[in-house]
């Protein structure tokens, strides 16, 4: 028996995609997870820790899912290299825990046999035993164990005590590595033999898969379902988050009022109320919407729907030069371009991957949501169209749609005028449908919320303070006739930028707010809150921004800013990820340049359209 005093055990979870490895990893390590990157590549490295019943510490590495050691993507290359001990910065695991889907041993056991050739100690974890039970699949665990020469345990990762057998097995001494098969063995044939001896399967497919896929994969009805799901997502994000946002708004306003009441008028009070609270508060208000969006995406991912959506969209996307596999990275980009761009590692062909990376920022990321919500709230009337659909939600959906259509157009242009043809593979597994597991969704959401709050706490706070400083100093002399902020650094910078931005209707306040918006998109809202709060004389005005700009800006300006933000050059963090993924500053520069150009042109068009609309509305109102 290994004592608690001995060194930690290093194990790696390995398996085909869709074996429930992530759920098992969550079950084993809970919140003790660390996510980083493998050096030199943009493959995610997930490590966690756990304590065995005996007290021994175990370090768990969650390797990227792979179908075989014949790597077909950077992900799979990492898995292969770590198993072979070929990475200098990563030690070879002491033990491989092969996670297999008990409902699909026909596919998953092949990889186990392939791994057995490596000469490493191994354990097999038969996961999803609950689903296997429901489908009437009978597995003789002991027989399988004897035939494989590898210890086999049963796990149900989504149950609270579902990893008990695995933990107990880890507490034993390391098993001897399995005897390797002769090198020319037909692995599939060997798996057939194992299944014939140890497994009974009543039917090849799950009833639920047949029933659902009949509609979801249907060429017409499937597309309707997809459109409905997307539309529901956007409507919900704009409508359901309401009560939570009101709660946050009230707290923020209360905080501001409290400070105003208890601090003497002066720099400190101005800094805290007009800088910090106005800035940070106006962005926190949008946390519920962002979380709701992520909730939808996580549920779609966990349920098994996303590859089916990729199946439906592949042909259309291919016409634009994108692959169906780009759907998942692009969908993730709706939440945040950073994980979206990192997800492009699943696209094998480098040119295809590059194109998806360049186009990902056009998928309206959640950081733009605060800006959209603010502007829609200020300029789009809260009416119902056809008695069914909120106009505001519809406009939001339209904004997203424009981003998507532009992305398809850009991809098409690149394909048309680019060189060579792209020979990519779709070849995607459509996993069995399953109910999203609340615990895994929750862990995913918490991860997302903490990233967002760190950004708010970190970059946005720093920038809010910086902007407050720029907007407060130098203070104007007593005989200054304009507002204080016009005299400050911020005012000067804003007016200087007007050369470029006046034609699209941006006043200097917007120009000033755009600069910190480069660091983090949400900051544009907090920057404007700070700028207007200061101009307005210091009341806690974070939640009052919408009526202020509705009163002071023209419709053209509001629409121009909306249009600008569909394309606006992305935040510094995204640029950093693009640099890492593509390894090229040129790509970063191209990305910045083409997005700036698109944004400027779109804002120009919107500004003048808005001007015409105002004229029409004014004319109609006066008749």
């Amino acid at each position, binding site marked *: 028996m290994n004592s608690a005093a001995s060194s930690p055990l290093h194990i790696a979870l390995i398996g085909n995609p869709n074996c429930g490895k992530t759920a098992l990893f969550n079950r084993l390590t809970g919140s003790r997870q660390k996510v980083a990157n493998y050096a030199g590549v943009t493959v995610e490295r997930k490590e966690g820790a756990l304590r065995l019943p005996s007290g021994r510490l175990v370090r768990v590495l969650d390797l990227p899912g792979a179908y075989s050691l014949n790597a077909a993507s950077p992900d799979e290359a990492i898995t292969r290299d770590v198993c072979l001990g070929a990475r200098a910065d990563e030690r070879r695991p002491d033990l491989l825990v092969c996670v297999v889907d008990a409902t699909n041993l026909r596919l998953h056991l092949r990889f186990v046999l392939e791994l057995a050739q490596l000469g490493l100690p191994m354990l097999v974890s038969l996961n999803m035993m609950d689903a296997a039970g429901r489908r009437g699949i009978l597995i003789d665990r002991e027989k399988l164990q004897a035939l494989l020469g590898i210890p086999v345990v049963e796990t149900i990762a989504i149950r609270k005590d579902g990893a008990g057998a695995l933990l107990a097995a880890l507490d034993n001494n390391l098993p001897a590595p399995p005897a390797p098969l002769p090198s020319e063995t037909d692995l599939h044939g060997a798996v057939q033999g194992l299944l014939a001896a140890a497994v009974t399967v009543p039917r090849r497919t799950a009833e639920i898969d047949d029933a659902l*896929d009949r509609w979801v994969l249907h*060429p017409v009805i499937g597309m309707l379902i997809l459109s409905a799901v997307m539309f529901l997502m956007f409507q919900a994000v704009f409508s359901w988050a309401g009560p939570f946002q009101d709660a946050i708004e009230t707290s923020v306003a209360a905080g501001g009022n409290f400070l105003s009441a208890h601090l003497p008028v002066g720099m400190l009070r101005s800094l805290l109320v007009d800088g910090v609270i106005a800035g940070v508060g106006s962005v926190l208000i949008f946390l519920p919407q962002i979380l709701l969006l992520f909730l939808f995406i996580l549920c779609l991912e966990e349920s098994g729907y996303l590859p089916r959506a990729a199946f439906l969209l592949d042909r259309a996307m291919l016409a634009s030069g994108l692959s169906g596999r780009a759907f998942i990275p692009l969908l993730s980009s709706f939440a945040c371009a950073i994980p979206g761009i990192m997800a492009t590692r699943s696209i094998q062909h480098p040119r295809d991957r590059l194109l998806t990376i360049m186009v990902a920022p056009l998928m309206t990321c959640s950081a733009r949501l605060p800006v959209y919500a603010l502007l829609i709230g200020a300029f789009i009337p809260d009416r119902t169209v056809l008695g069914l659909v909120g106009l505001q939600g519809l406009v939001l959906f339209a904004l997203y749609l424009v981003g998507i259509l532009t992305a398809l157009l850009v991809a098409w242009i690149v394909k048309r005028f680019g060189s060579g043809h792209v020979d990519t*593979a779709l070849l995607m597994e459509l996993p069995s449908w399953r109910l999203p597991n609340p615990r895994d969704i929750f862990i995913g959401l918490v991860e997302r919320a903490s990233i967002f709050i760190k950004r708010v706490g970190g970059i946005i706070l720093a920038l809010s303070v910086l902007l407050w400083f720029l907007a407060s100093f130098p203070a104007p002399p007593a005989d200054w006739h304009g507002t204080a902020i016009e005299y400050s650094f911020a005012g000067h910078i804003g007016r200087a930028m007007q050369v470029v931005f006046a034609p699209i209707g941006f006043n200097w306040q917007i120009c000033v707010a755009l600069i910190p918006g480069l660091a983090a998109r949400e900051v544009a809202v907090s920057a404007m809150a700070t700028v207007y709060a200061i101009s307005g004389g210091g009341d806690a005005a974070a939640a009052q921004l919408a009526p202020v700009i509705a009163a002071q800006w023209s419709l053209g300006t509001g629409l121009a800013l909306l249009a600008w933000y569909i394309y606006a050059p992305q935040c510094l963090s995204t640029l950093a990820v693009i640099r890492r993924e593509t390894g090229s500053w040129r790509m970063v520069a191209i990305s910045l340049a083409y997005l700036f150009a698109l944004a400027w042109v779109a804002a120009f068009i919107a500004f003048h359209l808005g001007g015409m609309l105002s004229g029409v509305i004014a004319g109609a109102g006066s008749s």
Partner: protein
Amino acid sequence: MNLSLLKRGAHAIVEAVESSHASDAIAQRLRELGFVQGEPVSVVAFGPLGADTIAVQVGFTRFALRRSEAARVRVSLQIA
């Protein structure tokens, strides 16, 4: 015949995967995923816009393939 010509709902048996060129990684991956001799295979659905994408069931797994990928798989129809 090859898999890309199979009608929806028809059942067939895989005979072999043919590489379309030397070191055809797609063909290799198809074999690893279970498109091997004797495996039952059927078409579950065709994608919209010209049926260029095919959802197939091979063994116990469902995959989405393009026509060009499915064309590498030689099958023989099962006389049911």
